[in-house]
């Protein structure tokens, strides 16, 4: 039977980890358990549930920094940021549409480090995690980084922790950078673009500081909740512009001029923009349980790779991110289609995720290096064993 352990302080977690090491009994580390659909399934007897380790410890809006305990609900963090007119600029996704789960903790957010459409402009979760406190799989409490935005003191372990899926250490507290919310948001749409790839790159490579560039082919556009998009019966390239009001207006106009060469252009205002980019961020077009892949590729190759692979897909990050509905069993074909980049099976049955690498396999040398790095933190593999695969 699986035992769920719910400590509410660092001393208890430390005790539990020491006990797990001595007993050689691995722990499945989780918060609200909203993302257990990502990565290889765990078969631990004990679940280390951090959701009671909760609370915002420090928030200074003028410093653009927040510190929160790992189990703090993302909703609580976002409410506090909303109140001060700030945000997590990397646009954390809500995994509801993918996994049918609700909630999410700030620790889980950084441990999974999946980010939204603003990635090319604002960076990923890893770029915003400034510091953390954690307990290693050796049963040692340690910290790294700090709570200032500029810091090169010692190795940057925060980068390593972001996206490590709880396999290195149990983060107990995270400190991250926040940014002011934009005053205004607009989205320029190009319907039925003659060359979706070029249109995306032209927008991305313009000086108009776009904060989202996506391509929804006709079948995906038809699923949008934004009526302008849904009812048009056409594929779209969507380009988001954010910032001070007068700036957004002139940048939108400039982008309409640039993108007009690729088809009919239209503009979405605040509410519709928010809906569209939430759909893109949370992959709402792929609700259900069909197998789903996420491919990170060089942006200029996105359309080509996606169309070669066939199936249903849409692109974010100006082509650098492909969301593709395709069988998990297509792994080899999908991974072979990328000259460089990596593909992750974001949704698939437990059996499938158990039987094949969910994350991209690394070269032998790199896999061995990653295993040595992991062993430095968790030599007895007691934290989320196998969740990220071997490498």
């Amino acid at each position: 039977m699986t035992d769920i352990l719910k400590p509410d302080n660092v001393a208890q977690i430390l005790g539990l980890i020491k006990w797990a090491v001595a007993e050689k009994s691995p722990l499945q580390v989780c918060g609200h358990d909203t993302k257990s659909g990502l990565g290889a399934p765990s078969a631990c007897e004990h679940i280390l549930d951090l959701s009671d380790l909760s609370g915002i410890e420090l928030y200074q809006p003028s410093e653009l920094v927040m510190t929160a305990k790992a189990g703090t609900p993302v909703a609580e963090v976002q409410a506090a940021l909303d109140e001060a007119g700030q945000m997590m600029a990397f646009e954390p996704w809500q995994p509801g549409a993918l996994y049918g789960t609700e909630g999410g903790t700030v620790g889980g957010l950084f441990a999974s480090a999946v980010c939204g459409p603003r990635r090319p402009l604002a960076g990923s979760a890893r770029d915003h995690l400034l510091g953390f406190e954690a307990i290693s799989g050796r049963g040692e409490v340690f910290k790294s980084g700090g709570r200032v935005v500029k810091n090169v003191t010692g190795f940057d372990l925060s980068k390593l922790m972001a996206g490590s899926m709880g396999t290195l250490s149990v983060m107990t507290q995270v400190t991250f950078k926040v940014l002011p919310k934009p005053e205004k948001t607009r989205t320029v749409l190009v319907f039925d673009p003659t060359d979706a790839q070029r249109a995306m790159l032209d927008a991305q490579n313009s000086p108009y500081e776009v904060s989202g560039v996506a391509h929804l082919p006709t079948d995906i556009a038809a699923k949008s909740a934004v009526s302008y998009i849904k009812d048009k019966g056409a594929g779209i390239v969507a380009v988001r512009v954010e910032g001070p009001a007068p700036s957004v207006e002139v940048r939108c106009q400039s982008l309409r001029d640039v993108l007009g060469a690729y088809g009919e252009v239209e503009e979405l205002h605040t509410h519709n923009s928010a809906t569209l980019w939430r759909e893109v961020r949370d992959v709402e077009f792929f609700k259900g349980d069909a197998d789903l892949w996420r491919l990170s590729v060089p942006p200029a190759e996105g359309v080509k790779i996606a169309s070669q692979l066939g199936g249903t897909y849409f692109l974010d990050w100006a082509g650098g991110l492909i969301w593709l509905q395709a069988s998990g069993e297509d792994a080899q074909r999908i991974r072979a289609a990328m000259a460089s980049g990596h593909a992750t099976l974001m949704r698939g049955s437990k059996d499938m995720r158990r039987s094949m690498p969910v994350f991209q396999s690394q070269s032998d040398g790199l896999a061995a290096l990653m295993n040595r790095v992991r062993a430095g933190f968790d030599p007895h593999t007691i934290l989320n064993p196998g969740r990220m695969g071997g490498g």
Partner: protein
Amino acid sequence: MKMPTPNADTLKRRGEIIERLRAIVPGEGVIVDENELKAYECDGLMAYRQLPMIVVLPETTEQVSAVLKTCHDMDVKIVPRGAGTGLSGGALPLADAVTLGLGKFKKIIDIDYDNRCVVVQPGVTNRAITEAVEDAGYYYAPDPSSKIACTIGGNVAENAGGMHCLKYGLTTNNVLGVEMVLMSGEVVRLGGKHMDAGGLDLLGAVTGSEGLLGVITEVTVRILKQPEVARGVLVGFPSVEAGGECVAKIIGSGIIPGAMEMMDKMIIGAMQDFVDSGYPLDVESLLVLELDGPEAEVQYLTDRVKDIAASVGSTYLRVSESDEERQQMWKGRMSAFPSVGRISPDYMTMDGTIPRHRLADVLTRMNELSQQHGLRVANVFHAGDGNLHPLILFDANKPGELDKAEAFGHDILRLCVAVGGVLTGEHGVGVEKRDLMGEMFTEDDLKQQQRLKCAFDGSGLLNPGKVYPTLHRCVELGRLHVTDGNIPFPDIPRF
């Protein structure tokens, strides 16, 4: 500053090591002559000097790999080096180590505008990347003050910053991939032209690792389109506090300028003396800001900055009216370090970061320390992100002044940590701040960082004596301290 004791056995084998290295890098690529070695005896932190045992200047990744493998097999230490502009002694040679210079890796391999990236060899200078793409309207954002001379490989090793990093990030936020050689000679690739590396983010960990994890032989950086307009704004204040308040209000109101630099009265005078940037001399502190974007945005933000400046009682404000004028405004700031040479025979540049709201407290305390140590201090800082560069003025010819300056510098860095900041914002730890790491980290914090080093370099031959005060052997670090596992935890809720 205590460096590891040179290994007598290694020194005895110098001839054999030279021979083996010459078999890999022929001709003038292996430097052994004492006079020629002198050119490598220090980096930008010139207070510490040491002749390297041998210098090797490979030209290909294969040569780097063979050099590292050979040194690994012969148990010889390696100190990697870029242009030697680092300010914390990260490339300081060791008497029993080979200094491996990447100066011959000068090729720009690929400029890929569609993917907004450039692939370069590590010896390409920071400025050369921007020069290669500026005609097409692009630039590389991180811009350390030494950008004309410093190399991208060194930038990655030190996670270099600069004035634009408040808005555009440090090196770590602008590097997409590297090829690197491990101490074993193995070549690995991390990341590439796509965003986010797969698996554990080793690229993030390698960036800023100060040459302790591997030798970088190729770098892929992202480039950005130049903004339509960039405008400089100079704002003067009757007190340092008013300047600090202005910075906090600008950021608090949601404006992130392209750059925001602040300086105190002592250095304003020195800078103005050095380059005529039109800096006012009757103010206690001066902000140099850059606002960039489309004209409408820049105009709008300039107006808001003017209002904020007036609200905190600024006594001087000038907006650049041409690009030449904007560049002239920056020339003063860029000359901060050399201009101090006019007011003091010697100076020591410190580098710490503090939470911005503690600025006034820190400056007050720094003035007290200045009186206590009997040395003057001038201040320039990256105001937007709290990165201070106090310049301690001293005269090395006066007995004891260098020691006093060092003690003063250490007190300043301790102060930064005490108010919630860090020991270094952009110069790195190197040898300079190595012995202060304990101010910020516990023994367990440091051990965990060194375990990362062990994963990359189990023999501890890459750049030893830098960054970490205590040299642990990897085997010691592997010990587990878990003793008692039979605790039932009755107090922890179970479900």
